[in-house]
């Protein structure tokens, strides 16, 4: 009887343990699709961490981080900070501070401390009309360090709220600003201005293709847009020239440090995109070359020393965006060694058949793949990267 009692007790314990273990096991077997992104600073620095030249600035969950010597540093608190852009001398940066219904532009030190407010878009506290507030995105400084460019939602009429490219003194006020582009109505507008050394800008203009689909196009503008008038609200095309075709749906331009190449992303109106590069002569884009295909790629940015291109991309489909680096050798391989010339046979002239040289083994260029730098972060793919040398 005692044996049966202990047997029963043992079975009961077994039942409890097994059922509990099964529950825990099943709980641990889920796919972790909803795992929250870690701060990049977690676990940083890692042994053998990949190092990039200079310091890279990027944004995650409303905070700006820097990455240098294989280590992330959090520069601001998680409070809507995004789209950092460096001064030409690298001493300060511009950054967007986004709230739920407007965004401002600030000057920060390169360590993330607030210096001053450049554009205040909060509107009047007494005005409850949501249309009285504004968005500023993609601030960039011209090479002179005194002129700021940005996308700004003015002019807007009623429901039509397009972003347009504006220029203003970085130490001035918005009413000193000049409108550079007339965005196309009901498209979302013009974004991502890149100031050029020639005084103009390259930017992404949204328009409609022949099928009515909204697409991005790279544009070049060398002068402010003529002001729109009452009848022709959009002087489409008057402010410059298109650099890419509508159906290519290109955006996020980035010019190489030597100024002779451009990187961009193009979707061809699909839900994946390509990282493409092309030569750039200051007014035209050369033949484009796809470096990465069939993967989501965002914010390509050239290294200041020209050693490669950093970009954001998910490591798995549907995943959070991680930091990647594509070394220069992937798109600009070193020239192959010269083909060996057969040594002539010593002696007098030979009149027979020329000896055929032993065929050299085919030179297969090693495939350089992009290097994934982070694994569990969740960077803001709508926030351009800033890279100091």
């Amino acid at each position: 009887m005692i044996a049966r009692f202990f047997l029963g007790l043992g079975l009961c314990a077994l039942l409890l343990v097994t059922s509990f273990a099964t529950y825990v096991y099943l709980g641990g077997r889920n796919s972790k699709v909803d795992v929250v992104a870690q701060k990049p600073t977690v676990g940083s620095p890692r042994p053998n961490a990949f190092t990039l030249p200079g310091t890279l600035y990027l944004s995650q969950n409303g905070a700006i981080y820097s990455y240098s010597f294989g280590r992330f540093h959090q520069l601001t608190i998680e409070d809507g900070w995004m789209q950092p852009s460096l001064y030409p001398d690298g001493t300060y940066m511009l950054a967007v501070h986004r709230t739920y219904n407007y965004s401002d532009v600030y000057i920060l030190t390169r360590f993330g401390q607030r210096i001053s407010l450049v554009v205040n878009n909060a509107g009047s506290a007494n005005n409850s009309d949501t249309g009285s507030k504004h968005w500023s995105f993609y601030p960039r400084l011209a090479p002179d360090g005194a002129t700021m460019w940005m996308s700004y939602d003015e002019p807007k009429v009623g429901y039509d709220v397009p972003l347009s490219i504006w220029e203003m003194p970085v130490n001035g006020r918005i009413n000193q600003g000049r409108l550079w582009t007339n965005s196309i109505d009901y498209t979302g507008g013009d974004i991502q201005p890149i100031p050029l050394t020639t005084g103009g800008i390259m930017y992404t203009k949204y328009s409609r293709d022949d099928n009515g689909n909204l697409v991005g196009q790279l544009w070049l503008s060398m002068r402010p847009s003529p002001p729109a008038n009452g009848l022709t609200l959009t002087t489409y095309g008057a402010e410059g020239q298109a650099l890419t075709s509508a159906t290519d749906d290109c955006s996020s331009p980035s010019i190489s440090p030597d100024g002779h190449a451009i990187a961009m992303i193009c979707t061809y109106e699909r839900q994946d995109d390509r990282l493409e590069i092309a030569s750039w002569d200051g007014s035209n884009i050369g033949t484009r070359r796809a470096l990465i295909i069939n993967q989501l790629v965002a914010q390509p940015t050239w290294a200041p020393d020209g050693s490669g291109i950093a970009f954001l991309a998910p490591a798995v489909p549907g995943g959070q965006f991680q930091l990647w680096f594509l070394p220069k050798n992937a798109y600009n391989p070193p020239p192959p060694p010269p083909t060996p010339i057969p040594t002539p046979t010593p002696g007098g002239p030979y009149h027979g058949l020329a000896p055929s040289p032993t065929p050299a083994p085919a030179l297969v260029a090693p495939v350089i793949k992009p290097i994934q730098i982070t694994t569990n972060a969740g960077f803001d793919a709508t926030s351009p990267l800033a890279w100091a040398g």
Partner: protein
Amino acid sequence: MPLGILPGRRARASRRRLSIVRTAALAIFAIGLSAMAGSVAYFLPAAKLAWDATGQVISIASPTPSPTSTAVSSPTPSPIYQPGAFTVLLLGSDDDSKFSPDHVLTQSMILVRVIPTTKQVIMLSIPRDLYVPFWAGGSGKIDGAYSYGQAGGAIATVEQDFGVHIDEYIWIGLLGLIKLIDAIGGIDVVTSNPVIDDYYPQDIYDPYPYDFQRVAVLAGPQHLDGIHAMQYVRSRHNDLQSDIGRSKRQQQVLLAIRQKAKQVSSTDVPSIAAALGGEIKTSMGLGRVAQLIPFAATFDNPDAITSMVMTPPLWHGGGPGGSLTPNWPEILALVRQYFP
């Protein structure tokens, strides 16, 4: 008799051996039973919620003949037989406090044809403002069909007007979409353009559903959580194509959800079901849903997915109450190509 074994001892040994076998069998049975109990405990809450959400009975009210029902007279489409193929009507509603829960509109209606043999998916968005005869009688914008007869009313109206057969439906509310996307950890979308809206309804988690808020979903590839994905698919004020434009965005998000759902395993079901609780309804039974989840993962080829949105000349504006007047011959010709 073999030497060394007495008859009584052999019987005891036999009983002891039997007892060990019985004990082992009992233990194995107990382990199996308790493992099953653990599994039931794990999946029970999800099963309860899933049971409530799935297998919804489609009730269709008797139709009242409508004098304006021009579409009924359209020729029946020739059926395209594809073994195992089925058609689902996806319905999305603004189920905020502006509406009575039983009388919500369907702001989004998408016909989806799934052809397992060729791994093809065809999606056709129906404009919510299309002026159609209702199954229950009378005419109006098609988004009202649900409010007059729930899913059954919407299905019967679409079947009647478009000459299609609908096998299943899935209805999801505003919060349901947000919770679904959050439960699967967000989605990756290439947003087509900056979606900026100064008068976006502030009716989620807000006691005043008629308030407005500003939204700005920036352009390009990005990872969207539920709230921002909702803003992307719902905003229409800053889109010249209004409802048509957002239908295209809705299809992008649907495909992104499908892409992400490939990574979901059966053990994720409890957390997803708990997140969704009450925000989704479907006519599909639990078994059918369980069968389709792994099946959906096999649809890998993006070129095999056809997304369509009805644009002019399939309709023209100027209908009653700002509705769209359908061009039925054109619409039926299109629908007949893809939907039996």
